[in-house]
């Protein structure tokens, strides 16, 4: 064990003035994203937009001022997942009249594109220049091209941080993982953390052979809360049972019992792809071995099992780290920090954190903010008029 040096704990966060100054550009940009054009007769869209804008900016200010990332990120992340379900349902019911996906919907490209498909479309796209997904390229709700551009931009910005800041499903298992105070299942065999790689390999290969999105057709747990094929055959019934079982097991029960994000850490195939993309991302999370007291609180608290004993020695998280900030906030000796590659560890940790938060939050405000705002609007309309539209 390295010699412990007594260091004066760094006062967390930035001061009020600095936090407000850094908040201003975010306030302006998020207003532009959420304003949605000139004022209209109907005040509801404006109310939904303002509520979202206020919530986003208050939480960002608190992140800056308190120096804590995880707890405020978590609020936004869970809100994003819950509001996605509402927004999705409302959009699909409005355009198709039913959440059940029919063959006719598939033929007409009425399926909204989802990021989880991305690993499976890459090889077929390279070989055939076609997207093996029954969606629309440029029109409709969540067209393929817009989702691909968003994903590519987000991946360049945050790498694997996608999984804790922008994925609109991750908030579900994160939310369930916070319900119980203590875990019932205290340890998870680390070998399970390799399963996402196998799922990635399996679905990529199967999709390449069959030219259809294997993950969507067989393994996506979130089909249970968004849309899935109308049950018109035994095969579809089997698929639906798989979706619901995976959702209940990986997204609800296991996160509750383990207090870890089991779907994200132990199953989702997009995670490994983001981990590979993370190699070219400038941000990571580092541990200063000289400050670390080996209390292992970070290992116990990491929601995605991205820290182990070797991490503490090497000063690096595992490649599955989603930059959620939990370990950074949890470390009692402030030995863990957001870090910019090429710079010295622990030096200007605040600057690194702010530089990470800025583009991430800009993206969240536009992308996540629109989903949250849309859901609030849907609820307001339902409450005031009895209809979602």
């Amino acid at each position, binding site marked *: 064990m390295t010699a412990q040096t007594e260091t004066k704990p760094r006062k967390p966060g930035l001061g009020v003035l600095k936090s407000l100054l850094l908040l201003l550009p975010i306030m302006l*940009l998020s207003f532009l*994203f959420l304003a949605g054009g000139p004022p209209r007769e109907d005040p509801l869209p404006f109310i939904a937009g303002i509520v979202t804008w206020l919530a986003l900016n208050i939480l960002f200010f608190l992140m800056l001022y308190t120096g804590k990332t995880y707890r405020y990120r978590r609020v936004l992340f869970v809100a994003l997942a819950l509001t996605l379900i509402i927004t999705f349902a409302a959009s699909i019911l409005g355009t198709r009249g039913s959440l059940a996906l*029919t*063959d*006719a919907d*598939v*033929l*007409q*490209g009425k399926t909204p594109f989802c990021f989880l498909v991305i690993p499976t479309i890459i*090889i*077929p*796209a390279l*070989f*055939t*220049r*076609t*997207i*093996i*997904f*029954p*969606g*629309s*390229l*440029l029109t409709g709700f969540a*067209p*393929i*091209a*817009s989702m*691909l*551009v*968003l994903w590519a*931009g987000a991946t*360049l*910005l945050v790498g694997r941080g996608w999984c804790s800041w922008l994925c609109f499903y991750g908030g579900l298992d994160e939310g369930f993982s916070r319900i119980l105070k203590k875990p019932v299942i205290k340890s998870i065999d680390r070998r399970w953390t390799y399963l996402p790689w196998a799922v990635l390999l399996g679905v990529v290969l199967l999709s*390449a*052979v069959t*030219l*259809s999105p294997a993950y969507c057709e067989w393994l996506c747990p979130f089909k249970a809360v968004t849309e899935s094929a109308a049950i018109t055959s035994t095969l579809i019934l089997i698929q639906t049972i798989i979706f619901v079982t995976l959702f209940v097991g990986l997204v609800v029960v296991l996160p509750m019992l383990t207090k870890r994000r089991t779907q994200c850490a132990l199953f989702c195939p997009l995670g490994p792809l983001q981990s590979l993309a993370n190699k070219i991302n*400038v*941000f990571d999370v580092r541990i200063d071995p000289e400050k670390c007291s080996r209390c292992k609180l970070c290992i116990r608290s990491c929601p995605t099992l991205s820290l182990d004993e070797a991490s503490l020695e090497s000063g690096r998280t595992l490649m599955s780290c989603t930059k959620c900030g939990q370990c950074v906030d949890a470390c009692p000796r402030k030995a863990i920090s957001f870090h*910019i*590659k*090429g*710079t*010295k560890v622990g030096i200007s940790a605040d*600057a*690194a954190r702010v*530089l*990470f938060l*800025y*583009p991430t939050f*800009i*993206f969240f405000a*536009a*992308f996540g903010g629109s989903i949250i705002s849309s859901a609030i609007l849907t609820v307001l309309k339902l409450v005031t008029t009895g209809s979602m539209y």
Partner: protein
Amino acid sequence: MQKLKAILGYTWAALLIPLAVATLFGMGSWMKLLVSGTGLTVSPWFTGDVVARTVKHDGYETRIHRPVFQALIGERREGFVQVDWGPLEALPAQVDEEVDFDDDGQADFRVVLDTASGQATLTPLTEYVLNLAGTFRLDDAWAMRATLRNPRR
């Protein structure tokens, strides 16, 4: 060297801010650029591929798509051809048509479609037509897919 790496790191991190803004504000342009630049289309296994020929009838038309045998490399041994009839309001109660999907002057199959219920029967007229894969009521047409054996394999 360390200083240079640090400068590059900070610069790269700072550049991500305008990148985020550019991605979001330029979404429409990026989308169109992605599609036009790559030539990507949705897989014909879903879309039924492009319409190869149109046969006009009294008030409605028959749209015969290009047969689909797409594989990752080359072609598959089996595929399908999609035929649409529309618009819906102009369709007769029953469509009874012989379809020549490969435009060789010889009818390949005969289809009888009840446009109220979507029930259809398919009679193959060549060895390459296997069976009826299904009928589908689209927004403005009835579509039918016939399973085919690839004559090139």
